[in-house]
C-alpha cells in the first residue's frame, strides 16, 4: 500500500500519533510529525511511497513543535533523529525542509555498510551514471532534467554503492531545487511536480520535486555503474564532455565519498573497481537540451 492509497485524514492521524513508516530505497523511515502544518504537502509529495507495516525502521525521525527564546512568538520546529536534535530549530514554515535535510543527514552519518558518494545517480538501459559533485554544482537540477526525460532516478544526493555486489542501490527521494534553478525547471519542465516554495532557508528558497512514480516503484532494482560524470553547470558555456584520466577520477571520487576512509580496504577496492569498469568524464554544461543529447549519446 502506498501513502496515496490512504486518505489525507488517516495520513494526518498516523503522522501525528504513532507516525508513518515508509520505504525509501533500501531503508524504512518512521516519520512522526507533531507540527502538521505541512502534512498536506507531505501527503502529496510522498503519495507514491510504499507504506511499511511490519518491517523494522532503520531511522526514526520526528519533527516537533519548538520554542525559540529569541523569537518566542513565532512557531518553530525541531528535527529529531532517535530523540537527538542534530541541527538548530527552524521556523515552522520550513518544516518540510527540516524533515528532508534531517533524513539526508541521518543517512550520511548512520550508514556505513554501504559506500556513500555525494552524487546524483540515474539509470538508463540498465546501467548507471554516477554524477559526483560538490554542493552548488547543479546535481539536483541535472537530475530533475534527466529523470523527466526517461532516466530512472536513483538519487539526486546519494550514490549508495553496495561494495559486496558492486551495484548502486536506488534511494529516490524528493529533490530540493534551490533559488534560480526553481524557475529554470518550471520553464523547462512544466510537467514536473513541485511542492510549495519555501523561502528564507539557509540555502535560500527551496522547492521539492517529486521523483517520477516509476523510479519509486522500481526502487528495489539495483544496477551496476557504467559511467562516472563529474558535472558542473556554468552559465552560457557550450557543453564539454571530456574524458578524465583514471588516476584523477579515482582521486575525485574517493574525495567525494562521505565514508571512504571509514569503509577501509573495501572502500579502496570498491572505488578501484568502479574506476576500472566505468568511463570517466568531466562535464560542463549550461543548456538542458545539449545535456540530454550528450547523455543520450553516451548511454545509447
Amino acid at each position, binding site marked *: 500500500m502506498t501513502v496515496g492509497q490512504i486518505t489525507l485524514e488517516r495520513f494526518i492521524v498516523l503522522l501525528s500519533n504513532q507516525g508513518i513508516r515508509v520505504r525509501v530505497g533500501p531503508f524504512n523511515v518512521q516519520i512522526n510529525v507533531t507540527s502538521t502544518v505541512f502534512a498536506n504537502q507531505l501527503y502529496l509529495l510522498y503519495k507514491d511511497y510504499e507504506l511499511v507495516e511490519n518491517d523494522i525502521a532503520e531511522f526514526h525521525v520526528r519533527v516537533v513543535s519548538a520554542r525559540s527564546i529569541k523569537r518566542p512568538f513565532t512557531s518553530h520546529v525541531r528535527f529529531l533523529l532517535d530523540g537527538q536534535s542534530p541541527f538548530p530549530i527552524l521556523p515552522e514554515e520550513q518544516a518540510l525542509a527540516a524533515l528532508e535535510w534531517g533524513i539526508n543527514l541521518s543517512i550520511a552519518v548512520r550508514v556505513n555498510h554501504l559506500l556513500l558518494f555525494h552524487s546524483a545517480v540515474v539509470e538508463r538501459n540498465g546501467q548507471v551514471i554516477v554524477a559526483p559533485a560538490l554542493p552548488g554544482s547543479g546535481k539536483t537540477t541535472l537530475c530533475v532534467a534527466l529523470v523527466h526525460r526517461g532516466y530512472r532516478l536513483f538519487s539526486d544526493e546519494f550514490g549508495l554503492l553496495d561494495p559486496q555486489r558492486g551495484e548502486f542501490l536506488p534511494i529516490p527521494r524528493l529533490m530540493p531545487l534551490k533559488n534560480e534553478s526553481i524557475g529554470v525547471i518550471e520553464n523547462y519542465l512544466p510537467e514536473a511536480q513541485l511542492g510549495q516554495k519555501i523561502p528564507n532557508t539557509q540555502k535560500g528558497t527551496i522547492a521539492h520535486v517529486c521523483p517520477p512514480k516509476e523510479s519509486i516503484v522500481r526502487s528495489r532494482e539495483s544496477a551496476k555503474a557504467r559511467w562516472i560524470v563529474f558535472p558542473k553547470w556554468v552559465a552560457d558555456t557550450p557543453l564539454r564532455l571530456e574524458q578524465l584520466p583514471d588516476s584523477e577520477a579515482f582521486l575525485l571520487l574517493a574525495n567525494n565519498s562521505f565514508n571512504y576512509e571509514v569503509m577501509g*580496504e573495501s572502500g579502496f577496492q570498491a572505488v578501484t573497481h568502479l574506476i576500472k569498469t566505468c568511463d570517466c568524464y568531466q562535464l560542463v554544461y549550461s543548456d538542458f537540451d545539449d545535456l540530454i543529447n550528450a547523455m543520450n549519446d553516451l548511454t545509447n
Partner: protein
Amino acid sequence: MSSKVYWRPIGFSCLRIEEWNEEFTLYQPDSGKTHFLNQMGMQIILDLAQSPASTDDICQSLAAQFELCLNQQFSQQIISILNRFNELGLIEKVEKESSM
C-alpha cells in the same frame, strides 16, 4: 665498525597497489589512508621492498633508472620524498653496522 642508516618499507606485503597509467594509488591498511604516488615515488617503495638501502644508494639507483642527473637538487628532492614517506609510515629508518 660504523653504523649506516638504511631505509626499509613498513608492511609492504599488506599494501594494496593499483596502477593508473604510470600513476599509483596505494592503500595502507595500518592507517586506512590512500596515497597517490607518481612513478618515482612508487619505484622508491618497490626498490626498498627488494632490499633496504641508504639515501645515497637510493638516489644513485633512481638517477640511473630515470636517466636523470645526480646532483644536489635531485638528492634534496629524494630526501624530501623519503622523509614524507617516513612521516606517512610507509618506510622507516634502520641503522646497520658495517665494517669500514
